[in-house]
């Protein structure tokens, strides 16, 4: 009797111990697994949210798919983990996910104290305020004494505190962890104002019971460069993620889209040939297949395409390119040369 109990105990403990074995380098772990585990939002329309058939859609989702295509040549080799704002960094630090594409703002303390590496910004955003029209507020400077709904653990929380302190106004926060519950509380009137990144405000308003009753105030009170993130410690993995995002931007600069990429393979321009892998070299330098950039553009699209598909003017969000246009069009999207 005692021996069998001991055996059971030892078996359970050994299994537990085996489960906490450490993954080696991140890229090796991903290649061995055969897919990327990406952390996404799960609740923001246009960035990372499953549609009504359960297929994940969004700008961040497409970015994660581009990385999967770069490594495996197949956009389906990525699994998504929805994370709240409070869980996202711990999940990345602990190894639960390999890549965080969850509209996270790049800041100094996150890059240093949290031990994360942010790659190229895939969306330039800013923080705004959304109020019901019936309050009659025209500017963020009139919000003294207001009750404001905000997500915990975000730069939003700190920026709002700084803004109100600078302008000597006081406010009461209502802090709820779940994005959908927070939106519900705002629509029910528990708080006067909802504050978040302007893109998230647009996404939240799109799923409001009556979107016409809400207005986003004109003031943008902060810079929010949203970028995918990986852990410190694996430079090759970081380079791959970085250049997967840059490949999409570079493709738009060169005028390559998912429709004409096959025709562009026959181009005589050496820059295009190097980019698409006709002239070899880039793939080997990154440790990937030479057609990695071609695969990304063919299966996911260039930056302009993923922008217009998810958050562009023809979607319910209706966001203009603005700062997210190419540098040649007055925006900030600029890719280093691919050679």
């Amino acid at each position, binding site marked *: 009797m005692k021996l069998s109990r001991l055996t059971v105990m030892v078996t359970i403990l050994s299994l537990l111990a085996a489960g906490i074995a450490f993954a080696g380098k991140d890229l090796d772990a991903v290649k061995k697994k055969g897919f990327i585990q990406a952390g996404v939002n799960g609740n923001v329309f246009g960035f990372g949210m499953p549609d009504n058939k359960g297929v994940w859609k969004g700008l961040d989702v497409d970015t994660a798919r581009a990385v999967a295509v770069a490594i495996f040549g197949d956009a389906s080799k990525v699994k998504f983990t929805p994370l709240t704002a409070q869980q996202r960094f711990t999940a990345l630090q602990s190894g639960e996910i390999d890549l965080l594409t969850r509209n996270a703002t790049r800041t100094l303390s996150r890059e240093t104290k949290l031990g994360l590496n942010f790659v190229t910004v895939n969306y330039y955003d800013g923080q705004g305020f959304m109020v019901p029209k019936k309050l009659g507020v025209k500017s963020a400077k009139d919000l003294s004494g*207001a009750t404001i709904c905000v997500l915990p653990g975000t730069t939003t929380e700190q920026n709002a505190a700084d803004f109100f302190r600078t302008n000597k106004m006081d406010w009461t*926060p209502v802090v709820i962890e779940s994005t959908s519950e927070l939106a519900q509380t705002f629509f029910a009137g528990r708080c006067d104002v909802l504050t978040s990144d302007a893109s998230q405000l647009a996404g939240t308003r799109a799923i409001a019971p009556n979107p016409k009753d809400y207005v986003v105030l004109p003031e943008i009170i902060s810079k929010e460069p949203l970028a995918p993130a990986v852990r*410190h410690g694996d430079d090759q993995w970081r380079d791959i993620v970085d250049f997967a995002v840059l490949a999409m931007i570079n493709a738009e600069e060169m005028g390559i889209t998912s429709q004409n990429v096959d025709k562009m393979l026959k181009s005589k321009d050496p820059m295009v040939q190097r980019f698409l892998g006709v002239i070899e070299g880039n793939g080997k330098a990154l440790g990937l297949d030479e057609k990695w950039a071609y695969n990304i553009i063919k299966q996911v699209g260039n930056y302009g395409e993923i922008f217009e598909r998810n958050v562009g003017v023809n979607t319910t969000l209706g966001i203009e390119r603005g700062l997210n246009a190419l540098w040649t069009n007055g925006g900030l999207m600029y890719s280093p040369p691919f050679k």
Partner: protein
Amino acid sequence: MTPSLILRCIVSFLVSVCSYHTGSPLQSEPSITPDAGLQPSAAPFWRDPAKRAIVFQVAALLLVASVCYYLFTNTQANLERQSIATGFGFLETEAGFEIGEAMVDYSAADSYADALLVGALNTIKVSFIGVILTVILGTFIGIARLSSNWLVARLAAGYIEVMQNIPVLLQLFFWYAIFYETFPSPRQALNPFNGVFLCNRGLIFAVPEAHAAHTAMGWVLLIALVAGWGLNRWGRRRQALTGQIFPIIRVTLALCLGLPLLTWLFYGAPTAMNVPELQSFNFKGGITISPEFSALLLGLVFYTAAFVAEIVRAGIQSVSRGQIEAAMSVGLRPGQVLHLVIFPQALRVIIPPLTSQLLNLTKNSSLAIAIGYADFVAVTNTTINQTGQAIEGVALIMLVYLSFSLSTSLFMNIYNKKMVLVER
């Protein structure tokens, strides 16, 4: 040494140490024969059970210590490899976030340590009030469940079944939704009495302006309570000697109400009130009981009271029926039977499981983050997120909840010891 091998070694050592004490033969007792003067020769070192036990225990201790050391240094090495900050220095840096409700003055410019203190006080506030209300409500429903009135007993049973079986988080969401969906916005707030407003921002009511009289009244109330306690002891001794019952409840109530009233009159009867006023968005002034606090309190109290009711019922049923019949035949009223005969015996059975339920209530209050109440876990989560120091943050949470739980169970165990029946 792989972790699994270490764990297997610990397990086998602990099993051998624990099982040792059940089967040791009595080797060192002298034999009871006519020539009992002969002692058996002392056993060599490895066959002496007492010395063997010591060796094994030291070895087990060393093994556990080496595992702890391995875990600690491994964690340190990994944190350094990923360049994640360590140490408690972050407690002195600026917090940078606001907290919705605070019992002490707090702003975003204060340190993380101040923010954590605010969170801890909020947890204590909801746990303390929750514990008192739960015990009262649970006792009441437990007694109602045993009532001879069929309707009352069925209603109590229905309440217990429903509240025990719905997950507590759902109950919290339900109460919170009731508060913010059904109550109007501040501009159309309900105004049942002068100075009292009810809206989806909470219950806001007027309070007297702070005045020196109030501190004096507080001290006088404390003196009145102590005097009441002293009178209780004297009254009980007098009852034991002469049989006269002292009306202790009425006298203590008179003292607690009358003495502060006299103090208030002595200070010139100050009547200035801090009345809430609606400004552009919210009410300013007075005291606000937020819907988050109310929802958390009501959700936790109604949920835990259902469990406490069953415990109270178990305690009352553990008292034999003969006691109740004997008490009634002596002429005691049902209320006195409950108070003098049943509860002193039932409390022995009630207090240990009741302690567990009260600890559950304290720990369940950490669900506050789902409905926006700034309790300790919520504030620490934000701190972890901003500083990246998950290990220190979680260690703080464990420490704080451990101290809450240990002090609650210490208090309850002292009370339990006093309640233990002294057998003749």
